[in-house]
């Protein structure tokens, strides 16, 4: 008896091409409180979707390798430690330029692809170091510039820090919102704060960190996301990496849906950046599937999606080597960042 032949899968919807022009910046809009108030999020249903999304989608073999390469290009390679030094930052920047071993790219026929990380993310103090180290690479420097991670220094100081970072050469600014505004549902205050930060950024892109681990409910996450977008955020970002709970799929799902909602109603595209706690290649793939299915292929580009991560890259390298050689890899086989 002949073995049944698997039915062919459907053709995927046409994907965005690399030549996609960078999305125009989100100009923001006046605060619309009615819209914010009408946001509903059902936690159990969101958690169910997040849990089953992982089981509904997977990529294997060449697809997995290609997706992981894409994940590398979507990474904000980050170091945000109290013991950071110029040397450490320079090492990170060197890794950012060559995130995957050349021999592995060759083996995958991917040597010609522009495989470098999306940005290098550092404290303000190291912006200049990084800018110099990355010169000519096209990799932007992102700075966390608003009294990170608590974000509770006086607003004027935080705005000054943003301006200083931009002056030092940062093209992207990751700011933290005042959680108190979100927790007390003082949306006007949150809006004004982000608006002011966006102005301080000038041409630099602004990523607003919601610190979702401290926002208590998914509904608050959704509403804060919306307010930040109304105030002109280019990206909304989950976490500083310093909260007890960082980027989780349910949170990411809620934020992705807020971005979709905002796009549907205003036409503006806003990026998503999960950060903190994403260490395994498999998790990165889950995030990519979430973004692909909930927001669409357009979001799988560095102008609209970033991972904030430090140790993720090493696991991706190990998985790529496994794909190439068929042998499980070890961390020490890949250059440290």
């Amino acid at each position: 008896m002949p073995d049944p032949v698997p039915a062919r899968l459907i053709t995927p919807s046409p994907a965005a091409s690399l030549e996609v022009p960078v999305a125009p910046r989100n100009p923001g809009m006046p605060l619309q409180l009615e819209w914010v108030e009408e946001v509903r999020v059902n936690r159990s249903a969101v958690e169910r979707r997040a849990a089953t999304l992982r089981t509904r989608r997977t990529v294997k073999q060449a697809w997995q390798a290609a997706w992981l390469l894409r994940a590398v290009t979507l990474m904000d390679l980050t170091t945000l430690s109290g013991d950071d030094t110029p040397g450490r930052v320079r090492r990170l920047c060197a890794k950012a330029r060559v995130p995957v071993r050349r021999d592995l790219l060759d083996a995958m026929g991917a040597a010609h692809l522009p495989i470098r990380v999306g940005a290098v993310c550092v404290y303000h103090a190291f912006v200049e170091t990084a800018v110099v180290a990355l010169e000519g690479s096209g990799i932007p420097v992102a700075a966390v510039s608003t009294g990170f991670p608590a974000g509770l220094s006086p607003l004027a100081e935080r705005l000054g820090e943003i301006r200083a970072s931009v002056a030092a050469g940062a093209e992207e600014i990751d700011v933290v919102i005042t959680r108190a505004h979100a927790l007390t549902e003082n949306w006007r205050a949150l809006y004004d704060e982000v608006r002011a930060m966006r102005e301080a950024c000038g041409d630099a892109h602004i990523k607003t960190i919601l610190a979702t681990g401290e926002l208590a409910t998914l509904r608050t996450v959704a509403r804060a996301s919306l307010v930040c977008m109304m105030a002109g955020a280019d990206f909304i970002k989950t976490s500083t990496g310093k909260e007890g709970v960082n980027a989780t799929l349910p949170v990411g799902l809620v934020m992705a849906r807020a971005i979709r909602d905002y796009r549907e109603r205003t036409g503006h595209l806003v990026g998503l950046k999960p950060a903190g706690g994403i260490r395994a290649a498999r998790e990165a793939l889950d995030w990519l599937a979430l973004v692909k299915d909930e927001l669409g292929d357009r979001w799988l580009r560095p102008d609209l999606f970033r991972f904030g991560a430090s140790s993720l890259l090493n696991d991706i390298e190990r998985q790529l080597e496994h794909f190439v050689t068929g042998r499980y890899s070890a961390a020490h086989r890949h250059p440290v960042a």
Partner: protein
Amino acid sequence: MASIPEIFETMAYGPAPEGAGPARAWLDGHERRFGRFIGGGWTAMAGESFETLNPATGAPLARLRQTQPGEVDRAVRAARAAQPGWWALGGHGRARYLYALARGMQKHSRLFSVLESLDNGKPIRESRDIDIPLVARHFYHHAGWAQLMARELPGRAPVGVIGQIIPWNFPLLMLAWKIAPALAMGNTVVLKPAEFTSLTALRFAELCEEVGLPAGVVNIVTGDGRTGEAMVAHPGVDKIAFTGSTEVGRLIRAATAGTGKKLSLELGGKSPFIVFPDADLDSVVEGVVDAIWFNQGQVCCAGSRILVQEGSATRLVEKLKARMETLRVGDPLDKAVDMGAIVAPVQLEKIQELVRRGEEEGARRWQPSWSCPREGWFFPPTLFTEVAPAATIAQVEIFGPVVVLMTFRTPAEAVELANNTRYGLAASVWTENINLALDVAPQLKAGTVWINCTNLFDAASGFGGYRESGFGREGGREGLREYVRWEWDVAAAGKRRTRTGRRAAGKEAAAARQSRDGRRNGGRPASPALPPIDRTPKLYIGGKQVRPDSGYSLQVFDARGAVAGEVGQGNRKDIRNAVEAAHTALGWARVTAHQRAQVLYYLAENLAARAEEFGHRIAGSTGDAAGAGREVELGIERLYAYAAWADKYDGYVHHTPYRNVTLAMPEPIGVLGVVCPDTSPLLGFLSTVLPGVAMGNTVVAIPSAAAPFAATDLYQVLDTSDVPPGVVNIVTGLPGELAPVLAAHDDVDGLWYFGSAEGSAEVERLSAGNMKRTWVDYGRGRDWTDARQAEGEEFLEQATQVKNIWVPYGE
């Protein structure tokens, strides 16, 4: 194969196939031919056979045996022979075997999953993450019930040999739902899997061998409807449990009528999916995916009717369409598809035909832009908008990935539309307002209501239908009732076998004749102790005494054969009016249980005040003055008992493994017809009418024709006891005439019949029209003075149906 740079560019999904090697090796190991599993062994592969196909390709998977009636008989005899030993093994012994089956299922979970997807066409994600884990969970859960049976179900005994017929949509899961509770309660089974999907059942039979299950406890016979028919017709089967179409369920109801076979049916549905404006719409969209694109929509409880508040409809439709574009249909063994193949060409054609009909009738069809695989049997997810409730696709169960969307204005209208169906299997309610959710859930005619979720199942929660979706529950404590009998009944059955023919059939006809027959009082002077003859009661409908439509009366004779008086002869129109009155009074269900208890106590008080008069009446009819006095006393006690039960027959909160409360609420059935027993005129009437009333049903009662006065004398007692009009309606007449009218009435929700064997059979047969719940005694009778058999849970279970409401929580 696409290159890495290409995929890097497109970010497309690629193939992610689950290996089918071990499943194919298993099939090959059997030379792709299977016999049946009977009495612990495999029958030879000879005689009529058929092929089972892979729906994703149409290719044959294996050849199976069409089981003939004679072989069904062998299987039933094997099950019969095994049953006493299985029961005698005790709860712990059975628990050990069920536990072993659960473990075995987990140990071989991937083989079962792959086999299921190969044979049925469902995505491997579903068989792997949903079906098979639920199967294991079902055996674990019921291992526990076997262990606890003696303690938790006192007074109950196994039914015996169970014939189980299951559908093709959840082959192994339905097997588990049938076999686990049956075995736990000490029964043995003959199970027939659907002919499209028998493979996992056959692998399960091997598992039974592997764990050393005693021979004959589980028998698996393959075949089509003819095999099922032979099982239904077999006199050695004590109960039939069926899951499948309402059409076949109806045939089974008619075929088993009067045989005394217990019956549980889990049938079709057209379940509403209600979306209120304050719902989380993005989550609603995923809910729809889980509701109708789960298992290709081949789910009896699929949320196939979206009812959305008019103001939210446009946004929901936009979001749905966007989501449908990202669904992936294809190879069921691909780990990243959302939908697999339709089980068989015949089902695919049925779906296509109904979709065509929907378009012809003016509904707007929408399907995603991508196309389905060409080989195999696939159908794309489909949304119909601009659908009127009158449209075929809004009424008929499609059993495919097709959902219709309609709008409502108010919560009341949502409920009305939701209940505007013959079915009543499940419903889903989406709102962030718990007040609204918990207001709507009890109003929905459905056995399961999911709040902000859908298609969640668990062994601890009962699943089953209202209305034409069937009766009986599977899972949970309530599901066990289907697989047990009362010990007193088993004992009585033993005695009955030694004492035949004592109860004369047709006694009712002999005892009461129409006055127009010309028969007159036999000349005997009425005893001075009896009430005067000229009190001729009318019928009691809607709280009023009304003349019978026929204009005829029936004579009633006393114990010595003299005319004791006359009662109105009710006819079908009187029944019609009584049912309407009962419907009008259904608000009784919303009266608090405490209040219902108060009314019953008040009835007791007023009956006690007239105890002497009732005693005389009963004595007149039975000729036993001492017994009459005792009967009135017992009647008052019974009123107390049901007043007590009214606010104590609680539901449960089931421990299902999700973050939610699963509320199992006993709800009244609705309008209940009761044909009262001939024995114990007053006590028989009270014992059969009160349980329904206590639980919030409204009742149309046909009192004993031989001794109706105990019932008709109650009119005034009912009037003076604050019983709302229409809650109890009494139509005197000939039960042989009136019971069939009640049985064939589509607006009667349940019917109890305590009368002859022939009458019982007719009631069961006629009930198939609207699949009303029936409870008949097959002419066996029971001792109404013995509370053990005349009062309590057995009656309350029959007066209620369990609704499971799933309420997830979490802020």
